[in-house]
């Protein structure tokens, strides 16, 4: 099958959906002429014109807020927040307006909004351009939270997000844009709330998202040499969360390690571990472990950043701890 980069897969999803549905428009900073700071919206302006591909001023609150109004009035906005770190500038429009409107109105609003954004460390972009804030988003009822790790998942999940009638926060890890993988040419969807078993194994379940899914796979490869069989589960969406697939895996392996790049304290790992403990405590042969970033802002210096980001070695060590 043909291969695309993660960024190209997203780009193709946007183009195919925009061709299908004229109510979809794209807006954000530098999404038009520049084609997106990471190139995800390249070529959209040329194909769809300025009405549908809107370069905005630096005005995150209005980018997201206008998407709320436009969606409530019948359009399907796909807006870009250049870095998830900027969400604070616009948060009210997302969590008090977009997320709650349907509920507050007794079900009488429909808000098909996609907010695409980037997260993650790895390019020395420092404390305000490197964060992983998916747990904040998970904590807000009314939002769906998508965290793809492969080009295939990225395309299918973005198409699902665009067709969903709810506000969706679609988080792209910036270190994944260049990775390649097989991607079908035709449009396809991947249902939300369906985890993907990226590697089958019998000794331990490692749940990992985005860039960490890749590190978990590398760790699994290394651990296999030591005779440890690792099952890697990628939830793909955090809201809804496919607890069933994770629990079924743990029932098979009896051990659990959760990996994410966000800080451990208050992170998604706590929710995942708690869900497994609630439903499958009796199956666990060892206390679950979390591998995550320390409770600090993201440091700039490459040497500190590499300490901050969970490493393959840390995953390997955590797995060895739970299996012995």
């Amino acid at each position: 099958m043909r291969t695309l980069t993660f960024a190209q897969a997203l780009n193709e999803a946007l183009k195919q959906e925009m061709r299908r549905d004229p109510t979809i428009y794209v807006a954000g900073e530098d999404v038009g002429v520049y084609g997106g700071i990471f190139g995800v919206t390249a070529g959209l302006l040329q194909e769809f014109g300025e009405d549908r591909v809107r370069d905005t001023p630096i005005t995150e609150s209005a980018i997201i807020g206008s998407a709320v109004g436009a969606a409530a009035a019948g359009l399907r906005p796909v807006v870009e927040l250049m870095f998830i770190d900027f969400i604070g500038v616009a948060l009210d429009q997302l969590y008090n307006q977009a997320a709650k409107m349907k509920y507050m109105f007794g079900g009488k609003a429909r808000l098909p909004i996609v907010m695409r954004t980037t997260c993650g460390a790895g390019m020395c972009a420092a404390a305000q351009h490197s964060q992983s804030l998916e747990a904040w988003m998970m904590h807000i009822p009314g939002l769906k939270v998508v965290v793809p790790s492969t080009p295939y998942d990225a395309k299918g999940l973005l198409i699902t997000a665009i067709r969903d009638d709810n506000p969706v926060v679609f988080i792209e890890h910036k270190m994944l844009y260049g990775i390649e993988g097989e991607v079908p040419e035709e449009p396809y969807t991947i249902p939300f709330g369906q985890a993907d078993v990226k590697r089958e194994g019998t000794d331990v379940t490692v749940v990992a998202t985005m860039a960490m899914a890749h590190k978990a796979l590398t760790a699994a490869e290394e651990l296999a040499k030591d005779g440890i069989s690792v099952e890697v589960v990628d939830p793909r969406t955090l809201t809804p969360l496919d607890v069933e697939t994770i629990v079924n895996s743990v029932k098979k392996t009896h051990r659990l390690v959760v990996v994410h790049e966000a800080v451990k304290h208050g992170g998604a790992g706590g929710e995942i571990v708690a869900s497994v403990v609630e439903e499958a405590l009796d199956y666990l042969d060892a206390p679950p472990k979390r591998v995550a970033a320390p409770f600090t802002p993201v440091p700039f210096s490459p040497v500190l950043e590499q300490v901050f980001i969970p490493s393959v070695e840390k995953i390997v060590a955590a797995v060895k701890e739970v299996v012995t």
Partner: protein
Amino acid sequence: MSTDTEKLLWMYTNMLKIRRFEEKVGEFFAAGKIPGFVHLYIGEEAVATGVCAHLRKDDYITSTHRGHGHLISKGGDLKLMMAELFGKRTGYCKGKGGSMHIADVDLGILGANGIVGGGPPIATGAALAAKYRGTDGVAVCFLGDGASNQGTFHEGVNLASIWKLPAIFVVENNMYGISLPQTRSMRVQDIADRAAAYDIPGFVVDGNDVIAVYEAAGEAIQRARAGEGPALIECKTYRYRGHFEGDPMVYRTREEEEMWRAKDPISRFETKLMEMGVLNEAQAREINERILAQVEEAVRFAEESPWPAPEEVLEDVYTV
């Protein structure tokens, strides 16, 4: 012109210092020695220089992602700056901040900022502190044309206005916010027009003329020190480099860039100083060489400095 010779030469030297420092930063970024995002100020040196020429150590500034020029103008140490850009432990922020978060609180520099529009409310707060303590200190907020569209700009300026705070908002209008030209980010031609909405004075200045900047800033800062409240100064200027190093610059023309290079703030000022008899060729060469030596020293310091130790990642999160 009444500005004394010493001040004129300081401004000339300062602009050159920014330029030479940043040229070196650009080189080291290209060579892979400076990581992360680097936004250079080259072409805009007259703005920070003309404004900071009036500031004292106890005055505050807030800076931006394009902050090296502000830091240098407020007295920042080139060695500590360069070491920070390299991510070394001896840098201004112990390697934790990098270019976008460089700061020296002791010099009243409340930081570069990775959030566009992060500065205005902070400058308003620093101005509040100056007034509250009964000093005649001021706070200067540097921000871009793009940043002036953020809600925080409106909120910060309005608050400074109603509380009559000694805050000066200096918009560095380089005509673009990344790829978006000012003409497509707002309807007004002069951002200074927005001052009327807050009932504060607005100045439009040729930001490539350091004397023009110096004069407007002098008036605004004097008013602020006298308790007459904030002002908005718009400096029209241009960045020579891409938005960040590595920017392909598809959104502007080489002709436009050439046009602005012809209005270079440093060579214009140099010519003027020579005409005035304040500077001659030999002095100019000597100043340039002195600066180059300082920059080289900063590079050596940065290169020879140690990396932070891994456990330092955990330090400085809270005050204990």
